[in-house]
């Protein structure tokens, strides 16, 4: 019992710290990529406490619910968007032993849990009684449905190659050669993950130049902060998932001791890559976005799946 509590607390701590670390990294990396310095004052040293200060500010804001809004759905939506990532984070292993809950079908669990987050966006978009929120919610739903398919297909490819749907099992079966012959699947996963997170260049649902802030338009204070937190928690989950599935997780020198460090390091690398994409690339239009998903990513993921299946069949005795 005590162990369960400790493990849960560990996941909660990671869930509260890692997204802030990614957010701060985004602040600084994006600033320097744009020739700025980013936050410099909060906390003293290079603005390290900027997000803590932001959190304090969000807590002080008035929590407004529009009169025409569907009250309970509106109030519940941030939690529905945020909690699935907490649940998903619980089953992602940092090493073969450092994992909060070693679920047998970990891959399926993570994908299922993170897919629930879509409901939060839809609820927010529908219940806000705001046309921009509704437009954003519809775009989010269309986008997330389209990109769920290539995401699942590319994950199915590594699961097939490893012969297991357990996350620790996949990372154990990983071989450096995967970097080569699972590369198309990895690219599809990365692009689909960025789209799932609605990060630029796939930020059509929250495109602030067209529809204010999409589903989050009517949100204020802590509930708005929860949506932002869920975005960064999503980056953490997807980055760690990418590291475990495609980069061998805790594989590396001294993996017996430094295993979790390797996983976190690889995840951090992917997070920085996701930030880098945001800074560099323009937003895709809605039709381009759908075209990319259905005409490029799905065929690519299917081809990868066929390749993996052929390999597995031929290499099995």
């Amino acid at each position: 019992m005590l162990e369960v509590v400790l493990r849960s607390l560990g996941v909660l701590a990671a869930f509260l710290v890692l997204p802030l670390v990614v957010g701060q990294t985004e602040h600084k990396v994006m600033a320097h990529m744009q020739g700025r310095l980013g936050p410099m004052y909060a906390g003293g040293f290079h603005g390290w406490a900027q997000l803590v200060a932001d959190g304090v500010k969000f807590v002080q804001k008035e929590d407004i619910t529009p009169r025409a809004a569907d009250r309970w759905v509106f109030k519940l939506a941030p939690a529905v968007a945020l909690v699935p990532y907490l649940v998903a984070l619980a089953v992602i292993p940092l090493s073969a032993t450092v994992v909060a809950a070693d679920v047998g079908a970990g891959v399926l669990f993570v994908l299922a849990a993170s897919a629930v987050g879509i409901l939060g966006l839809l609820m927010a978009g529908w219940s806000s009684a705001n046309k921009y929120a509704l437009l954003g919610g519809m775009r989010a739903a269309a986008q997330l449905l389209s990109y769920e398919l290539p995401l699942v297909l590319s994950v199915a490819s590594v699961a097939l190659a490893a012969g297991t749907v357990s996350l620790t099992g996949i990372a154990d079966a990983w071989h450096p050669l995967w970097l080569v012959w699972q590369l198309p699947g990895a690219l599809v996963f990365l692009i689909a993950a960025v789209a799932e997170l609605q990060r630029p260049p796939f930020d059509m649902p929250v495109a602030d130049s067209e529809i204010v802030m999409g589903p989050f338009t009517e949100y204020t204070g802590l509930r708005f902060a929860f949506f932002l937190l869920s975005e960064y928690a999503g980056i953490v989950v997807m980055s760690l998932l990418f590291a475990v599935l495609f980069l061998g997780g805790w594989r590396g020198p001294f993996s017996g001791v430094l295993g979790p460090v390797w996983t976190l390091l690889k995840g951090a690398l992917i997070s920085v890559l996701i930030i880098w994409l945001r800074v560099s690339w323009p937003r895709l239009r809605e039709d381009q976005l759908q075209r990319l998903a259905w005409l490029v990513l799905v065929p690519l993921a299917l081809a990868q799946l066929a390749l993996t299946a052929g390999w597995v069949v031929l290499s099995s005795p």
Partner: protein
Amino acid sequence: MTDHQHSPGDSPKTNGFIPGLIKGLATTARTLATPSHTAEYPDVQPHLPPRTRGVIALLEENCTSCMLCARECPDWCIYIDSHKETLPATTEGGRERQRNVLDRFAIDFSLCMYCGICIEVCPFDALHWSPEFEYAELNILDLLHEKDRLGEWMPTVPAPSALDPRSADPQEVAAANKPPRTAPERRQ
């Protein structure tokens, strides 16, 4: 950028979107690697050029209350009050002299448009540009600065920049070097 010069009329080639995406990544990475040019102003004072038009400083001793600056000021933001004093003759049987004494000299910086005409027009170099700029006020009425405050900015006025090589001597030097006038020859 220079290696993609197109002659006028030649339509730019479309390279597809993958090279464009990579170019975007490369540009941001290069910017990340170069130090940013942000001036951290309140922590680090800016390096202002010597001719910066920050504020107008007054050297009170040079002012003769001639009112030229106040009359030339396009928005009439200079206020001057003065009175005449009579100085007793320095030698016996000499003539009494009169001179202007400056009572008030004020510039309203809420009106001033920093044209610098007052400084140009001052015949006795009583007004100077100072690079000092941190004199913002919460109330616009507090921007009317009297001669004490204007005099406080005088030490911040930078020395005039050196003359261009082979330029003519400045007026003062030229006047000092001029040979003294000799008495005109009397006709016998």
